[in-house]
């Protein structure tokens, strides 16, 4: 079924009786060309691009819960391409271009809203770092505007420009940045992949990876064994668990990142705003809730929930920056499991096991990467060569020291990007 305004009209007039499943619930076949472990955004996108770009449709996405139930459904929905380091910069640029055509590609309204994102800065040094980043973005062909205090005042006059603890010197504005409806991204990719013949197998937990003579043969699952020529791991926060089934240890620590939403409010924030002092970021959803987050809780966790100290600190950021938010009420807080790599950048690479591919280390930047990640991972799996924009995301970079992309410059000792 093709979605359109006309279709909605027709169904509305005939009692909405004609709607059909967004995707099938097939029984797993005994063998596929490719198995993707993890039915989150990246796994689903990988399946979609395997089918749509590379014509590989004998694909199963194995999901232990329900599709889109991980970080793709738990994030703060920000989409941007404002990375400062070579390697990441071109990758996210590529990803944003895919976002810009995603609705047509998927025939699904993911509500990608290019409402602009501004990264504020609070010192001369931070301005220079922002300029460096902006120049990287522009040299990549993306958009960046370095704003001074006056320009920021014009764009977002409701910040505290007088009393705030760390005065706002300016901001790096990225007009093509914005948000998207996170669940819709998962569902859109799922539906598109399903329509091309990809089997989405939910409630199917992978319990083992079969490797013979250094080559993958298939997986063991809670729904029986499934053979495959190639296996892609896209398990985000649980990447270490999946990799352990192949006897691998990863340069990954899983951490909890909290996110928050307020009750619905009339429109008050039109752009995405980030504030560096506490990694704070905020936008307003189309429903009116203020969606925001901050830094990690700073301890390893698989619990997908956090504690009060960071929750309070995140909101402290909000209040010193935007005192007008003071009476907004936090409706819900939740947590996601972040696969924190040791340089804050992802790993998209082959492994030492033939036919086993790795996609992890997204830290808290995975959502905006969804189409890009799926696209380049599909390329890697299909062609056995890294995609041009992801050739730096090597697994061995920590061991060799070559090509480390330390976005937050925090180093591996603290591993807290």
């Amino acid at each position, binding site marked *: 079924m093709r979605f*359109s*305004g006309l279709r*909605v009209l027709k169904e509305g007039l005939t009692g*909405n009786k004609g*709607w*059909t*499943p*967004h*995707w099938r619930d097939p029984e797993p076949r005994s063998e596929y060309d490719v198995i993707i472990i993890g039915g989150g955004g990246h796994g689903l996108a990988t399946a979609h691009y395997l089918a749509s770009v590379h014509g590989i449709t004998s694909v199963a996405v194995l999901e232990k819960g329900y599709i889109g139930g991980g970080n793709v459904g738990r994030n703060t929905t920000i989409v941007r391409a404002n990375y400062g380091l070579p390697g990441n*910069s071109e990758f996210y640029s590529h990803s944003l271009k895919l976002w810009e055509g995603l*609705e*047509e590609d998927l*025939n*699904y*309204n*993911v509500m990608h*809203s290019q409402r602009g994102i501004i990264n504020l800065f609070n010192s001369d040094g931070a301005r*220079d770092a922002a*300029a*460096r980043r*902006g*120049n990287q973005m522009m*040299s*990549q062909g993306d958009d960046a*505007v*370095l704003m001074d205090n006056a320009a920021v005042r014009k764009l977002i006059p409701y910040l505290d420009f007088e*009393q*705030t*603890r*760390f005065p706002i010197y300016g901001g790096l504005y990225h007009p093509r940045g*914005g948000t998207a409806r996170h669940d819709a991204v998962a569902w*859109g990719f799922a539906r598109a992949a399903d329509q091309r013949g990809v089997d989405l197998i939910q409630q199917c937990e992978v319990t083992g990876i079969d490797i013979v003579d250094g080559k993958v043969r298939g997986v063991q699952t809670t729904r029986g064994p499934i053979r495959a020529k190639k296996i892609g791991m896209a398990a985000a926060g649980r990447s270490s668990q999946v990799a352990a089934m192949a006897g691998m240890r990863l340069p990954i620590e899983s951490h909890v990142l909290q996110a928050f939403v307020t*009750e*619905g409010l*009339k429109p008050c924030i039109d752009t995405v705003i980030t504030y560096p002092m506490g990694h704070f970021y905020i936008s307003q959803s189309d429903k*009116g809730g203020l969606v925001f987050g901050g830094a990690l809780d700073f301890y390893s966790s698989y619990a997908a929930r956090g504690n*009060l100290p960071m929750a*309070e*600190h995140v*909101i*402290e950021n*909000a209040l*010193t920056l935007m*005192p*007008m*938010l*003071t*009476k907004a*009420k*936090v*409706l819900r807080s939740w947590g996601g499991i972040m696969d924190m790599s040791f340089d804050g950048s992802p790993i998209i690479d082959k492994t030492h096991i033939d036919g086993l591919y790795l996609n992890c280390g997204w830290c808290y930047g995975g959502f905006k990467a969804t189409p890009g990640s799926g696209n380049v991972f599909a390329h890697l799996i299909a062609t056995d060569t890294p995609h041009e924009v992801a050739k730096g995301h090597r697994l061995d970079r920590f*061991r*060799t*020291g*070559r090509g480390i992309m330390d976005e*937050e410059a*925090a*180093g*591996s*000792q603290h591993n807290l990007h």
Partner: protein
Amino acid sequence: MRVRNKGRIDRSKPVSFTFDGNNYRGFEGDTLASALLANDVRLVSRSFKYHRPRGILTAGSEEPNALVTIGSGGHQDPNVRATVQEIYEGLEARSQNAWPSLEFDVMAVNDLASPFLGAGFYYKTFMWPRAFWEKIYEPIIRRAAGLGALSGQPNADTYERAFAHCDVLVIGGGPAGLMAALTAGQAGADVILADEDSLLGGRLNLETLEVDGQSGAAWAAGVAAQLNAMENVRVMTRTTITGAYDQGTYGALERVNHHTSVRNGKAPLETFWRIAAKHAILCAGALERPVAFQNNDRPGIMTAGAVRAYLNRWGVAPGKAITVFANNDDAHRTALDMIDAGVHVSAVIDSRAEAEALGAYTLIRGAHVTNTGGRKRLESITVRSASGAQNIATDCLAMSGGWNPTVHLTCHMNGRPTWREDIASFVPTEGAIPGLVTAGACQGDFSTAACLQAGAAAAAHILGCDMADVPVGDDCAYRMEPLWAVPGKGRAWLDFQNDVSVKDIKQAATENFRSVEHMKRYTTQGMATDQGKNSNVQALALLADATRRGIPETGTTTFRPPYSPVAMAALAAGAEGKGFMPERFTTSHVATKERKAPMIEAGLWYRPSYFPIKGETHWRQSCDREVGYVREAVGVCDVSTLGKIDIQGPDAGALLDFIYTNMFSTLKVGRTRYGLMLREDGHVMDDGTTARLSEDHYVMTTTTAAAGDVMRHLEFVTQCLRPDLDVRFASVTEQWAQFAVAGPKARDLLNGLLDAPIDGESWPFMACGPVSVGGIKARLFRISFSGEHAYEIAVPSRYGDALFRALVKRAEKLGGGPYGMEALNVLRIEKGFITHSEIHGRVTAFDIGMGRMVSAKKDCIGKTMSMREGLLDEDREQLMGFKPIGPVMQLTAGAHLYEEGAEPVAANDLGYFTSVAFSPTFGHYLALGFVRTGAARKGDRLKMVDAVRGIETVVEVCHPVFFDPEGERTRG
């Protein structure tokens, strides 16, 4: 309509308030909801999507409909539940999400278009043309969405945060909670009893049940008095436990002054508590669930428990002709209480064929309410039974689909509640929150007697003490048969605020959103401000039905913190403005401010940007002048913000050898050395000078930014890697005030001030040692961050202000003066000294030209990993200096570098500038930066492109030390 002799309001104390500009009167003890009902106000809000008229549904914080805005200006508080807000004299409430008015809301047109706006419609349309989403569709959707509005102003009210600790936290002050608190209190435990309500007693205040032969409310008041008299019991009313966190930590919101007109900026409006409890007993009661049937959302349709709550607690009959529709015996109490109070009950409709009347009212058994009439207030209901359909006139329908235990807090740590068939609802799973037990209705025990007993038993169990005497309470059984939705046409509402109907759930199932989470996200069921408290269980049951699965198999409901929404002002009280983080001031702060120096933030510290003098209109004038002080006479600068760590012990040298890349154990006493510190991954962590004051006594300096990190690093190394080292250290950053005295006349300045003069022989470059200033013991270091003959002099902080003033006075006599951060930055760039702009976390010693400082003779932190092949690659970007040679002489930090003829695109990128300054010494800009292959490019011409600032020029690659490369001035 008020009912005589009912309720716990104080009729001698009338209270005036307004709603949508109309004046009303209530009484002290009223909530806004009870007072509006007493004034026969039915329509209080519009629903979120279809803007359908909505009235009050409940009598508690779970209210999904009656959300209003209270106050205005900086007091404006949106989305306040009228069912929780107590009225006070002068309270101003306004309706939300309706335009132009609540009575006539044009957005109600959405309701007519509802066939096209069903579950998930927006995912299927608005895709074309692409640019329309941001420009047309989204703005329209955003304007229509949202509930209340923020004022746009800062808070005019005060909020607080606080900590509390206790042995036992009792959550909820109903019969179970009261008995738990009483038992624990009598056993001598430190108890906190928290309840959302202003009165203890829970449903005892809302019912006509008896306890120990007296009214439940009276009994509760008696126990409350007992508890209040116990020193070890803290009773916190108007306090909601908002979240359960690890190791017995609970968040709690106390609404301290919401019920009063006190807005004096002193007494807090709310306090957010973090309570650390050794044990917790959840006695949170239960919430009644509505039944889904066609048009079950009209103003006047309420939960049955709420209808009698308004009668019993507030003396209000929510209608003149009450009807009841239920699937359980409990709801019949509503009819009984109404009849007792002299209010007419038209009929009780019970879906159970076997239901029996418990009093003198008309019972229609085995029947359903299938539709209702009346737009802005309920006028009639249609009842269908075996004998056919009939219309009954009524202005208040009390509905009940049964009760759901308040399991919410037990889900906050990922606990999934357990389905219990007999009550057709979820109960908490044991152990869901470590240290928390549940008792009473929240555990599915619905009779008063069971609650009283369970509360006492829970406390006795966890404390190993005797139960308080358990009084006699009502013990009638809870009898119900599940009824989720009445079959039939039309829209039967589940999530009242978000306008989710039974049809939406079925459509979601049809479209294969079969998982509870999928259904919820696709339909928005349970995502409104009540977070599904009123509707999740029904929606789950209907999804189970639509997908032909059992309820436990379909899934479970889960809830996340907070239990009810909490104002950001409370969660982060005190963080507005400067309260966000502490402010640190140097000892020269006052003297600096006296000179009108603009202060800039350096971490938590404040430091002077520059010291303006009369006639200067631009910071560059001041800066250039201050640079001149140092280059030509003498300048004084407070450098106290640098981290200072006092290190002592026989192994102090060994520790430093392990921490720094270079050797310190060989440093002579009385000498200072520059040191470079790596992270274990081989990248530069920090740098600074460390002085050896005696054989086993060093003082380390760190950069301002890394002071805390380095201190922690030393703790790590000494405790976790080298506990064998006999060494102790302490941060003395705040104990010593330290000032740089720099310039050709630096020694002249000091020699007028020190008790004994110094000379070049006794104080050569990098010397250090004790000196005396005005009889005060001080430390002098001959170190330089400017390339000039310079010292740093340190005195105990209490003398800092005096010394700074004395130094500046003498400097001015010598043709110099104080200098700030701008001049300091220029001086160090001229000399090629690095800061964290250069050692920004991604560079190695090799990158900054200090590869040779990594001693080959010893191990140190980071050494092995710094030798990874990729970190020693000649192709890496390395630190160099740059000067302009193009027509444009301006350089800018953050600019990128390219070959002169190359396109400025990412693939051609060679490097970037980290620090830039206009050098008055050289008369042009200078830059430090990183460029690929570094030193090999010395003398090359490169293109500098700063696209974001629109500046492009040509630069020459130079050695990073521009000024006095031989160091003659420093040593002289």
